[in-house]
Protein backbone atom coordinates (compact mmCIF):
# COMPACT_ATOMS: atom_id res chain seq x y z
CA UNK A 1 0.00 0.00 0.00
CA UNK A 2 1.19 3.49 -0.75
CA UNK A 3 1.86 5.62 2.22
CA UNK A 4 -1.00 8.16 2.36
CA UNK A 5 0.07 11.72 1.69
CA UNK A 6 0.43 13.56 4.96
CA UNK A 7 -1.20 16.70 6.18
CA UNK A 8 -0.85 18.94 9.17
CA UNK A 9 -3.35 18.98 12.02
CA UNK A 10 -5.02 22.39 11.81
CA UNK A 11 -5.45 22.59 15.55
CA UNK A 12 -3.83 20.56 18.32
CA UNK A 13 -0.36 19.30 17.81
CA UNK A 14 0.79 15.74 17.87
CA UNK A 15 4.19 16.76 19.18
CA UNK A 16 3.42 16.19 22.83
CA UNK A 17 6.06 13.56 23.24
CA UNK A 18 8.83 16.02 24.06
CA UNK A 19 6.92 18.01 26.66
CA UNK A 20 8.85 16.54 29.58
CA UNK A 21 12.13 17.64 28.03
CA UNK A 22 13.54 14.13 28.18
CA UNK A 23 14.99 12.78 24.99
CA UNK A 24 14.79 9.03 24.55
CA UNK A 25 14.53 6.46 21.80
CA UNK A 26 10.75 6.66 21.51
CA UNK A 27 10.80 10.44 21.30
CA UNK A 28 13.53 10.28 18.70
CA UNK A 29 11.45 7.93 16.55
CA UNK A 30 8.30 10.01 16.98
CA UNK A 31 10.22 13.18 16.20
CA UNK A 32 11.68 11.69 13.07
CA UNK A 33 8.24 10.63 11.90
CA UNK A 34 6.57 13.98 12.49
CA UNK A 35 9.40 16.05 11.04
CA UNK A 36 8.66 14.41 7.70
CA UNK A 37 5.21 16.02 7.70
CA UNK A 38 5.01 18.78 5.11
CA UNK A 39 3.15 21.93 6.01
CA UNK A 40 0.32 22.26 3.52
CA UNK A 41 -2.30 24.83 2.84
CA UNK A 42 -5.96 24.30 3.69
CA UNK A 43 -7.92 22.27 1.17
CA UNK A 44 -5.10 20.36 -0.41
CA UNK A 45 -3.08 17.40 0.69
CA UNK A 46 0.34 16.14 -0.16
CA UNK A 47 1.09 15.78 -3.83
CA UNK A 48 4.57 14.36 -3.39
CA UNK A 49 3.35 11.01 -4.72
CA UNK A 50 2.28 12.69 -7.97
CA UNK A 51 5.89 13.47 -8.80
CA UNK A 52 6.69 9.80 -9.03
CA UNK A 53 3.29 8.44 -10.09
CA UNK A 54 1.79 10.19 -13.09
CA UNK A 55 -1.43 8.19 -12.77
CA UNK A 56 -2.41 10.01 -9.57
CA UNK A 57 -4.55 13.10 -9.90
CA UNK A 58 -2.82 16.29 -8.81
CA UNK A 59 -5.36 16.75 -6.06
CA UNK A 60 -6.01 13.63 -4.04
CA UNK A 61 -9.63 13.50 -2.78
CA UNK A 62 -9.55 14.50 0.86
CA UNK A 63 -11.95 15.10 3.73
CA UNK A 64 -12.05 17.28 6.78
CA UNK A 65 -12.40 15.11 9.87
CA UNK A 66 -13.08 15.99 13.51
CA UNK A 67 -11.43 13.10 15.29
CA UNK A 68 -12.14 12.54 19.00
CA UNK A 69 -9.25 10.60 20.52
CA UNK A 70 -8.80 10.02 24.24
CA UNK A 71 -11.20 12.85 25.05
CA UNK A 72 -9.58 15.42 22.78
CA UNK A 73 -10.85 16.61 19.40
CA UNK A 74 -8.40 16.96 16.53
CA UNK A 75 -9.33 18.64 13.25
CA UNK A 76 -7.54 17.09 10.33
CA UNK A 77 -7.70 17.29 6.58
CA UNK A 78 -6.73 13.91 5.30
CA UNK A 79 -6.55 11.90 2.12
CA UNK A 80 -9.75 9.83 2.01
CA UNK A 81 -7.67 6.67 1.96
CA UNK A 82 -6.29 7.31 5.45
CA UNK A 83 -7.17 4.61 7.94
CA UNK A 84 -7.79 5.37 11.58
CA UNK A 85 -4.54 3.54 12.31
CA UNK A 86 -2.49 5.76 10.03
CA UNK A 87 -4.23 8.90 11.30
CA UNK A 88 -3.32 7.99 14.88
CA UNK A 89 0.28 7.04 14.14
CA UNK A 90 1.30 9.37 11.33
CA UNK A 91 -0.80 12.45 11.99
CA UNK A 92 -1.39 12.50 15.76
CA UNK A 93 1.92 10.83 16.70
CA UNK A 94 0.04 8.34 18.86
CA UNK A 95 2.36 5.50 18.03
CA UNK A 96 1.19 3.20 20.83
CA UNK A 97 -1.27 1.60 18.43
CA UNK A 98 0.72 -0.78 16.24
CA UNK A 99 0.55 -1.73 12.58
CA UNK A 100 0.99 -5.48 12.19
CA UNK A 101 -0.62 -7.07 9.16
CA UNK A 102 -2.65 -3.99 8.07
CA UNK A 103 -5.37 -6.40 6.87
CA UNK A 104 -7.45 -7.07 9.98
CA UNK A 105 -5.88 -10.41 10.77
CA UNK A 106 -3.50 -9.81 13.70
CA UNK A 107 -5.21 -7.43 16.15
CA UNK A 108 -2.12 -5.26 16.82
CA UNK A 109 -4.08 -2.15 15.78
CA UNK A 110 -7.02 -2.72 18.16
CA UNK A 111 -8.52 0.46 19.63
CA UNK A 112 -11.91 1.22 21.18
CA UNK A 113 -14.60 2.97 19.18
CA UNK A 114 -17.39 4.17 21.47
CA UNK A 115 -16.06 1.69 24.02
CA UNK A 116 -15.99 -1.35 21.73
CA UNK A 117 -12.85 -3.03 20.42
CA UNK A 118 -12.34 -2.56 16.67
CA UNK A 119 -9.50 -2.79 14.16
CA UNK A 120 -8.16 0.63 13.26
CA UNK A 121 -6.39 -0.70 10.13
CA UNK A 122 -9.72 -1.60 8.48
CA UNK A 123 -11.45 1.63 9.52
CA UNK A 124 -11.40 4.73 7.34
CA UNK A 125 -10.77 7.71 9.57
CA UNK A 126 -13.41 9.69 7.67
CA UNK A 127 -16.01 7.14 8.78
CA UNK A 128 -15.51 7.69 12.53
CA UNK A 129 -16.08 11.43 12.66
CA UNK A 130 -17.61 12.43 15.99
CA UNK A 131 -17.21 8.99 17.56
CA UNK A 132 -15.04 8.40 20.62
CA UNK A 133 -11.74 6.66 19.94
CA UNK A 134 -9.69 5.34 22.86
CA UNK A 135 -6.12 4.19 22.31
CA UNK A 136 -3.59 2.60 24.63
CA UNK A 137 -2.40 6.14 25.47
CA UNK A 138 -5.85 6.90 26.86
CA UNK A 139 -6.08 4.09 29.41
CA UNK A 140 -3.90 5.40 32.24
CA UNK A 141 -5.23 8.08 34.57
CA UNK A 142 -3.99 11.68 34.40
CA UNK A 143 -1.62 11.07 37.33
CA UNK A 144 -0.03 8.20 35.43
CA UNK A 145 -1.73 5.42 37.40
CA UNK A 146 -2.06 2.46 35.04
CA UNK A 147 -5.34 0.79 34.16
CA UNK A 148 -5.67 -2.47 36.16
CA UNK A 149 -5.29 -4.46 32.94
CA UNK A 150 -2.03 -2.67 32.10
CA UNK A 151 -0.73 -3.36 35.60
CA UNK A 152 -1.81 -7.00 35.38
CA UNK A 153 0.12 -7.43 32.11
CA UNK A 154 3.26 -6.20 33.89
CA UNK A 155 2.63 -8.29 37.00
CA UNK A 156 2.07 -11.47 34.98
CA UNK A 157 4.82 -10.96 32.44
CA UNK A 158 2.20 -11.07 29.70
CA UNK A 159 4.48 -10.05 26.85
CA UNK A 160 7.91 -10.61 25.44
CA UNK A 161 8.73 -8.37 22.48
CA UNK A 162 5.73 -6.17 23.27
CA UNK A 163 4.65 -5.37 19.73
CA UNK A 164 1.20 -6.94 20.01
CA UNK A 165 0.75 -5.73 23.60
CA UNK A 166 -1.17 -2.47 23.05
CA UNK A 167 -3.70 -4.37 20.93
CA UNK A 168 -3.82 -7.21 23.44
CA UNK A 169 -4.47 -4.76 26.26
CA UNK A 170 -7.24 -2.92 24.39
CA UNK A 171 -9.01 -6.23 23.73
CA UNK A 172 -8.36 -7.36 27.31
CA UNK A 173 -9.89 -4.17 28.74
CA UNK A 174 -13.04 -4.75 26.67
CA UNK A 175 -13.05 -8.40 27.76
CA UNK A 176 -12.89 -7.54 31.45
CA UNK A 177 -15.20 -4.53 31.36
CA UNK A 178 -17.71 -6.34 29.16
CA UNK A 179 -17.86 -9.20 31.67
CA UNK A 180 -16.56 -11.71 29.15
CA UNK A 181 -13.76 -13.15 31.29
CA UNK A 182 -15.83 -15.79 33.08
CA UNK A 183 -13.44 -18.67 32.38
CA UNK A 184 -10.10 -19.25 30.69
CA UNK A 185 -11.96 -20.69 27.70
CA UNK A 186 -14.14 -17.59 27.43
CA UNK A 187 -11.06 -15.33 27.69
CA UNK A 188 -9.25 -17.28 24.97
CA UNK A 189 -12.24 -17.15 22.65
CA UNK A 190 -12.72 -13.41 23.23
CA UNK A 191 -9.02 -12.72 22.66
CA UNK A 192 -8.55 -14.93 19.58
CA UNK A 193 -8.34 -11.92 17.27
CA UNK A 194 -5.07 -10.82 18.88
CA UNK A 195 -2.09 -12.81 17.73
CA UNK A 196 1.15 -12.97 19.73
CA UNK A 197 4.14 -14.20 17.76
CA UNK A 198 6.07 -14.70 21.01
CA UNK A 199 3.21 -16.93 22.22
CA UNK A 200 2.78 -15.21 25.58
CA UNK A 201 -0.79 -16.52 25.60
CA UNK A 202 -0.75 -18.35 28.98
CA UNK A 203 0.47 -15.22 30.75
CA UNK A 204 -2.00 -13.02 28.87
CA UNK A 205 -4.85 -15.24 30.06
CA UNK A 206 -3.45 -15.13 33.62
CA UNK A 207 -3.23 -11.32 33.48
CA UNK A 208 -6.83 -11.00 32.33
CA UNK A 209 -8.03 -13.41 34.99
CA UNK A 210 -6.26 -11.32 37.65
CA UNK A 211 -7.44 -8.00 36.20
CA UNK A 212 -11.03 -9.22 36.31
CA UNK A 213 -10.78 -9.63 40.07
CA UNK A 214 -9.10 -6.22 40.36
CA UNK A 215 -11.73 -4.42 38.27
CA UNK A 216 -14.57 -6.06 40.21
CA UNK A 217 -13.21 -5.17 43.65
Amino acid at each position, binding site marked *: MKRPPTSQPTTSSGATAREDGVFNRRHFLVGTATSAVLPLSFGTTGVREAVTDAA*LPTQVPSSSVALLVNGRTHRLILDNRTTLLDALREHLALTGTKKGC*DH*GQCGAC*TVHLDGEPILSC*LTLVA*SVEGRAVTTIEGLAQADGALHPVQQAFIDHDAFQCGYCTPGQIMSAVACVEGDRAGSDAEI*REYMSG*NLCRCAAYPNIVAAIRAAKTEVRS
Partner: protein
Amino acid sequence: MRPFIFERATSPESAIAAFHADRATSFLAGGTTLLDLMKLDVVRPERVIDINALGANEIEISEDRLRLGASVRMADAEAQEELRRRVPMLTQSLALAASTQLRHMATLAGNVLQRTRCPYFRDVSWSACNKRLPGSGCAAMAGFNRQHAVLGASDACIATYPSDFAQALIALDATVDVVGRRGRRQLPFAKLHVPPGRTPEVETTLAPDELILGFEMPIEPWMSRSLYLKIRDRDSYEFALASAAVALEVDGGAVRQARIALGGVAAVPWRAREAEQALIGRVLDEASCQLAADIAFAKAQPREHNAYKPLLGRQTVARALLQAAAMEA
Protein backbone atom coordinates in the same frame (compact mmCIF):
# COMPACT_ATOMS: atom_id res chain seq x y z
CA MET B 1 -5.02 1.91 -2.33
CA ARG B 2 -6.35 4.05 -5.15
CA PRO B 3 -7.83 7.50 -4.48
CA PHE B 4 -11.60 7.74 -4.12
CA ILE B 5 -14.29 10.30 -3.39
CA PHE B 6 -15.84 9.85 0.07
CA GLU B 7 -19.43 10.76 0.89
CA ARG B 8 -21.65 10.16 3.89
CA ALA B 9 -25.28 9.10 3.60
CA THR B 10 -27.71 9.72 6.43
CA SER B 11 -30.68 7.79 5.00
CA PRO B 12 -31.23 4.97 2.50
CA GLU B 13 -32.62 7.57 0.11
CA SER B 14 -29.52 9.76 0.29
CA ALA B 15 -27.27 6.71 -0.15
CA ILE B 16 -29.11 5.72 -3.31
CA ALA B 17 -29.13 9.33 -4.56
CA ALA B 18 -25.35 9.49 -4.07
CA PHE B 19 -24.93 6.42 -6.24
CA HIS B 20 -23.59 7.23 -9.71
CA ALA B 21 -23.89 4.49 -12.29
CA ASP B 22 -21.03 5.94 -14.33
CA ARG B 23 -18.46 5.59 -11.55
CA ALA B 24 -17.42 2.47 -9.69
CA THR B 25 -19.21 3.00 -6.39
CA SER B 26 -19.02 1.01 -3.17
CA PHE B 27 -21.19 1.33 -0.10
CA LEU B 28 -19.11 1.29 3.10
CA ALA B 29 -20.57 -0.29 6.25
CA GLY B 30 -18.23 -2.14 8.63
CA GLY B 31 -15.52 -2.07 6.00
CA THR B 32 -13.98 -5.37 7.08
CA THR B 33 -14.19 -6.84 3.58
CA LEU B 34 -14.14 -3.65 1.53
CA LEU B 35 -11.06 -1.99 3.06
CA ASP B 36 -9.16 -5.27 2.99
CA LEU B 37 -9.91 -5.80 -0.71
CA MET B 38 -9.21 -2.15 -1.57
CA LYS B 39 -5.76 -2.44 0.03
CA LEU B 40 -5.20 -5.61 -2.00
CA ASP B 41 -6.29 -3.71 -5.14
CA VAL B 42 -8.98 -6.34 -5.79
CA VAL B 43 -11.80 -3.81 -5.41
CA ARG B 44 -11.22 -0.37 -6.90
CA PRO B 45 -14.06 2.03 -6.14
CA GLU B 46 -13.82 5.59 -7.41
CA ARG B 47 -16.50 6.62 -4.97
CA VAL B 48 -17.19 5.30 -1.46
CA ILE B 49 -20.51 6.07 0.21
CA ASP B 50 -20.40 5.67 4.00
CA ILE B 51 -23.75 4.16 5.06
CA ASN B 52 -22.98 3.83 8.76
CA ALA B 53 -25.34 6.65 9.71
CA LEU B 54 -28.40 5.59 7.73
CA GLY B 55 -30.13 3.66 10.51
CA ALA B 56 -31.41 0.11 9.89
CA ASN B 57 -29.88 -1.02 13.16
CA GLU B 58 -32.85 -2.40 15.04
CA ILE B 59 -33.62 -5.92 16.17
CA GLU B 60 -37.35 -6.65 16.47
CA ILE B 61 -38.49 -9.93 17.97
CA SER B 62 -42.18 -10.76 18.28
CA GLU B 63 -44.11 -13.93 19.10
CA ASP B 64 -43.59 -15.39 15.64
CA ARG B 65 -41.34 -13.06 13.63
CA LEU B 66 -37.84 -11.69 13.71
CA ARG B 67 -36.48 -8.67 11.89
CA LEU B 68 -32.77 -7.88 11.89
CA GLY B 69 -31.73 -4.47 10.58
CA ALA B 70 -29.03 -4.54 7.90
CA SER B 71 -26.67 -2.34 9.91
CA VAL B 72 -26.89 -4.34 13.15
CA ARG B 73 -23.37 -5.35 14.14
CA MET B 74 -22.68 -9.06 14.39
CA ALA B 75 -21.67 -8.65 18.05
CA ASP B 76 -24.97 -6.96 18.92
CA ALA B 77 -27.13 -9.65 17.33
CA GLU B 78 -25.03 -12.40 18.87
CA ALA B 79 -25.54 -10.90 22.36
CA GLN B 80 -29.36 -10.96 22.15
CA GLU B 81 -30.41 -13.21 25.02
CA GLU B 82 -33.90 -13.95 23.67
CA LEU B 83 -32.52 -14.80 20.25
CA ARG B 84 -29.95 -17.15 21.78
CA ARG B 85 -32.75 -19.01 23.52
CA ARG B 86 -35.28 -19.08 20.70
CA VAL B 87 -33.03 -19.59 17.65
CA PRO B 88 -29.61 -20.74 18.90
CA MET B 89 -28.47 -21.57 15.36
CA LEU B 90 -28.63 -17.90 14.45
CA THR B 91 -26.56 -16.48 17.31
CA GLN B 92 -24.11 -19.39 17.19
CA SER B 93 -23.44 -18.76 13.50
CA LEU B 94 -22.44 -15.21 14.45
CA ALA B 95 -20.49 -16.01 17.62
CA LEU B 96 -18.38 -18.66 15.88
CA ALA B 97 -17.34 -16.30 13.08
CA ALA B 98 -14.32 -14.01 12.78
CA SER B 99 -12.86 -12.31 15.86
CA THR B 100 -14.29 -10.10 18.60
CA GLN B 101 -13.06 -6.94 16.88
CA LEU B 102 -14.41 -7.93 13.46
CA ARG B 103 -17.81 -8.83 14.96
CA HIS B 104 -18.00 -5.38 16.56
CA MET B 105 -17.36 -3.80 13.15
CA ALA B 106 -19.10 -6.02 10.60
CA THR B 107 -22.79 -5.53 9.85
CA LEU B 108 -25.26 -8.33 9.13
CA ALA B 109 -25.83 -7.21 5.53
CA GLY B 110 -22.10 -6.84 5.00
CA ASN B 111 -21.60 -10.31 6.41
CA VAL B 112 -23.82 -11.99 3.82
CA LEU B 113 -22.25 -9.90 1.03
CA GLN B 114 -18.64 -10.67 2.06
CA ARG B 115 -16.44 -11.91 -0.77
CA THR B 116 -14.78 -15.27 -1.06
CA ARG B 117 -11.48 -16.03 0.66
CA CYS B 118 -10.16 -17.82 -2.44
CA PRO B 119 -6.44 -16.88 -2.46
CA TYR B 120 -6.44 -16.55 -6.24
CA PHE B 121 -9.25 -13.99 -6.05
CA ARG B 122 -7.56 -12.04 -3.25
CA ASP B 123 -4.11 -11.83 -4.84
CA VAL B 124 -3.96 -9.73 -8.01
CA SER B 125 -0.60 -11.20 -8.98
CA TRP B 126 -2.55 -14.26 -10.18
CA SER B 127 -3.72 -13.42 -13.67
CA ALA B 128 -6.41 -16.12 -13.87
CA CYS B 129 -9.53 -15.45 -11.81
CA ASN B 130 -12.90 -15.42 -13.53
CA LYS B 131 -14.47 -13.68 -10.56
CA ARG B 132 -11.96 -10.83 -10.54
CA LEU B 133 -11.18 -10.70 -14.27
CA PRO B 134 -14.08 -12.28 -16.19
CA GLY B 135 -12.86 -14.66 -18.88
CA SER B 136 -9.32 -14.96 -17.48
CA GLY B 137 -9.67 -18.54 -16.25
CA CYS B 138 -9.50 -20.12 -12.79
CA ALA B 139 -6.12 -20.66 -11.15
CA ALA B 140 -7.74 -22.62 -8.32
CA MET B 141 -8.92 -25.38 -10.64
CA ALA B 142 -5.42 -26.90 -10.92
CA GLY B 143 -3.99 -24.96 -8.00
CA PHE B 144 -4.14 -25.28 -4.23
CA ASN B 145 -7.86 -25.89 -3.76
CA ARG B 146 -8.02 -27.39 -0.29
CA GLN B 147 -10.58 -24.82 0.90
CA HIS B 148 -12.68 -24.73 -2.24
CA ALA B 149 -16.28 -25.66 -2.88
CA VAL B 150 -17.56 -29.12 -3.71
CA LEU B 151 -21.20 -28.09 -4.15
CA GLY B 152 -22.71 -25.49 -6.49
CA ALA B 153 -19.40 -24.63 -8.17
CA SER B 154 -18.80 -24.56 -11.93
CA ASP B 155 -16.01 -25.08 -14.43
CA ALA B 156 -15.44 -21.32 -14.27
CA CYS B 157 -15.15 -20.93 -10.47
CA ILE B 158 -14.84 -23.16 -7.42
CA ALA B 159 -14.54 -20.41 -4.80
CA THR B 160 -16.24 -21.12 -1.48
CA TYR B 161 -18.89 -18.79 -0.12
CA PRO B 162 -17.52 -17.82 3.31
CA SER B 163 -20.37 -16.61 5.56
CA ASP B 164 -21.63 -18.66 8.51
CA PHE B 165 -24.59 -16.39 9.30
CA ALA B 166 -25.97 -16.82 5.77
CA GLN B 167 -26.42 -20.54 6.44
CA ALA B 168 -28.70 -19.75 9.37
CA LEU B 169 -30.66 -17.27 7.23
CA ILE B 170 -31.21 -19.72 4.38
CA ALA B 171 -32.15 -22.48 6.82
CA LEU B 172 -34.71 -20.22 8.48
CA ASP B 173 -36.41 -19.22 5.20
CA ALA B 174 -35.45 -15.56 5.73
CA THR B 175 -36.47 -12.84 3.31
CA VAL B 176 -34.33 -9.84 2.38
CA ASP B 177 -35.69 -6.32 2.42
CA VAL B 178 -34.04 -4.26 -0.32
CA VAL B 179 -34.30 -0.65 -1.50
CA GLY B 180 -32.95 0.95 -4.67
CA ARG B 181 -33.66 3.50 -7.38
CA ARG B 182 -36.71 1.52 -8.45
CA GLY B 183 -38.13 1.36 -4.95
CA ARG B 184 -38.41 -1.24 -2.25
CA ARG B 185 -38.73 -4.99 -2.75
CA GLN B 186 -38.49 -8.24 -0.83
CA LEU B 187 -36.91 -11.44 -2.01
CA PRO B 188 -36.24 -14.82 -0.42
CA PHE B 189 -32.74 -15.01 1.03
CA ALA B 190 -32.25 -18.15 -1.07
CA LYS B 191 -32.61 -15.92 -4.17
CA LEU B 192 -30.07 -13.31 -3.07
CA HIS B 193 -26.96 -15.18 -4.19
CA VAL B 194 -26.45 -16.80 -7.58
CA PRO B 195 -24.22 -19.81 -8.28
CA PRO B 196 -21.11 -18.97 -10.32
CA GLY B 197 -22.12 -20.77 -13.54
CA ARG B 198 -20.40 -19.06 -16.46
CA THR B 199 -20.42 -15.64 -14.78
CA PRO B 200 -18.73 -15.96 -11.38
CA GLU B 201 -18.27 -12.19 -11.24
CA VAL B 202 -22.03 -11.94 -10.68
CA GLU B 203 -22.58 -12.94 -7.06
CA THR B 204 -26.01 -11.58 -6.17
CA THR B 205 -29.28 -10.51 -7.71
CA LEU B 206 -28.93 -7.02 -6.23
CA ALA B 207 -28.74 -4.11 -8.67
CA PRO B 208 -25.60 -1.97 -8.12
CA ASP B 209 -27.68 0.83 -6.59
CA GLU B 210 -29.62 -1.47 -4.26
CA LEU B 211 -29.07 -1.63 -0.50
CA ILE B 212 -30.17 -4.30 1.94
CA LEU B 213 -32.32 -2.79 4.70
CA GLY B 214 -32.90 -5.90 6.77
CA PHE B 215 -33.73 -9.59 7.08
CA GLU B 216 -37.08 -11.00 8.17
CA MET B 217 -38.01 -14.52 9.12
CA PRO B 218 -40.71 -16.47 10.87
CA ILE B 219 -39.68 -17.95 14.19
CA GLU B 220 -41.47 -20.94 15.61
CA PRO B 221 -41.17 -22.62 19.02
CA TRP B 222 -39.45 -25.71 17.61
CA MET B 223 -36.53 -23.60 16.36
CA SER B 224 -35.11 -23.64 19.87
CA ARG B 225 -33.93 -27.11 18.79
CA SER B 226 -31.32 -25.77 16.40
CA LEU B 227 -27.57 -25.31 16.31
CA TYR B 228 -24.64 -24.31 14.17
CA LEU B 229 -21.73 -26.76 14.07
CA LYS B 230 -18.54 -25.40 12.55
CA ILE B 231 -15.46 -27.50 11.74
CA ARG B 232 -12.22 -25.64 11.04
CA ASP B 233 -8.44 -25.87 11.18
CA ARG B 234 -8.30 -24.13 14.55
CA ASP B 235 -10.88 -23.70 17.26
CA SER B 236 -11.48 -19.97 16.90
CA TYR B 237 -11.11 -17.12 14.41
CA GLU B 238 -11.13 -19.27 11.30
CA PHE B 239 -13.38 -19.93 8.32
CA ALA B 240 -15.26 -23.22 8.10
CA LEU B 241 -13.91 -26.21 6.26
CA ALA B 242 -17.39 -27.63 6.72
CA SER B 243 -20.32 -26.47 8.80
CA ALA B 244 -23.97 -27.28 9.30
CA ALA B 245 -26.90 -25.18 10.44
CA VAL B 246 -29.65 -27.54 11.53
CA ALA B 247 -33.10 -27.16 13.09
CA LEU B 248 -35.50 -29.97 13.91
CA GLU B 249 -39.18 -30.22 14.72
CA VAL B 250 -39.71 -33.53 16.44
CA ASP B 251 -43.13 -34.96 17.28
CA GLY B 252 -43.43 -38.16 19.26
CA GLY B 253 -39.89 -39.19 18.39
CA ALA B 254 -40.35 -38.67 14.62
CA VAL B 255 -39.17 -35.73 12.55
CA ARG B 256 -41.95 -33.44 11.42
CA GLN B 257 -39.70 -30.78 9.87
CA ALA B 258 -35.97 -30.45 9.32
CA ARG B 259 -33.76 -27.62 8.13
CA ILE B 260 -30.20 -28.24 7.00
CA ALA B 261 -27.82 -25.66 5.51
CA LEU B 262 -24.15 -26.20 4.71
CA GLY B 263 -21.26 -23.79 5.07
CA GLY B 264 -17.64 -24.02 3.95
CA VAL B 265 -18.40 -26.51 1.19
CA ALA B 266 -20.50 -24.64 -1.38
CA ALA B 267 -20.20 -21.74 -3.80
CA VAL B 268 -23.30 -20.02 -2.40
CA PRO B 269 -25.43 -20.28 0.77
CA TRP B 270 -26.53 -23.91 0.57
CA ARG B 271 -29.76 -25.52 1.67
CA ALA B 272 -29.80 -29.34 1.61
CA ARG B 273 -33.51 -29.74 0.86
CA GLU B 274 -33.38 -33.35 -0.32
CA ALA B 275 -31.61 -34.34 2.87
CA GLU B 276 -34.30 -32.54 4.87
CA GLN B 277 -37.07 -34.42 3.02
CA ALA B 278 -35.39 -37.74 3.71
CA LEU B 279 -35.67 -37.17 7.47
CA ILE B 280 -39.39 -36.42 7.59
CA GLY B 281 -41.31 -39.08 9.49
CA ARG B 282 -38.15 -40.80 10.64
CA VAL B 283 -36.75 -41.33 14.08
CA LEU B 284 -33.41 -39.58 14.53
CA ASP B 285 -30.69 -42.14 15.03
CA GLU B 286 -27.23 -42.83 13.63
CA ALA B 287 -28.67 -44.47 10.51
CA SER B 288 -31.21 -41.79 9.58
CA CYS B 289 -28.77 -38.94 10.27
CA GLN B 290 -26.09 -40.64 8.19
CA LEU B 291 -28.58 -41.16 5.37
CA ALA B 292 -29.49 -37.47 5.34
CA ALA B 293 -25.79 -36.56 5.40
CA ASP B 294 -25.09 -38.87 2.44
CA ILE B 295 -27.91 -37.30 0.45
CA ALA B 296 -26.63 -33.78 1.24
CA PHE B 297 -23.30 -34.59 -0.42
CA ALA B 298 -24.51 -36.98 -3.14
CA LYS B 299 -23.70 -34.44 -5.88
CA ALA B 300 -20.39 -33.26 -4.45
CA GLN B 301 -17.62 -32.66 -6.98
CA PRO B 302 -14.27 -32.69 -5.20
CA ARG B 303 -10.97 -31.57 -6.73
CA GLU B 304 -7.41 -32.55 -5.96
CA HIS B 305 -6.92 -30.97 -2.53
CA ASN B 306 -10.51 -30.79 -1.24
CA ALA B 307 -11.34 -34.46 -1.75
CA TYR B 308 -11.68 -34.72 2.03
CA LYS B 309 -14.63 -32.35 2.08
CA PRO B 310 -17.53 -34.69 1.18
CA LEU B 311 -16.57 -37.04 4.02
CA LEU B 312 -15.90 -34.22 6.48
CA GLY B 313 -19.15 -32.57 5.40
CA ARG B 314 -21.20 -35.75 5.84
CA GLN B 315 -19.78 -36.31 9.30
CA THR B 316 -20.48 -32.68 10.19
CA VAL B 317 -24.12 -32.95 9.11
CA ALA B 318 -24.65 -36.27 10.89
CA ARG B 319 -23.09 -34.97 14.10
CA ALA B 320 -25.08 -31.73 13.99
CA LEU B 321 -28.33 -33.66 13.52
CA LEU B 322 -27.56 -36.04 16.39
CA GLN B 323 -26.63 -33.14 18.66
CA ALA B 324 -29.84 -31.31 17.77
CA ALA B 325 -31.86 -34.48 18.36
CA ALA B 326 -30.41 -34.67 21.87
CA MET B 327 -31.34 -31.07 22.70
CA GLU B 328 -34.20 -30.11 24.98
CA ALA B 329 -36.64 -28.34 22.68
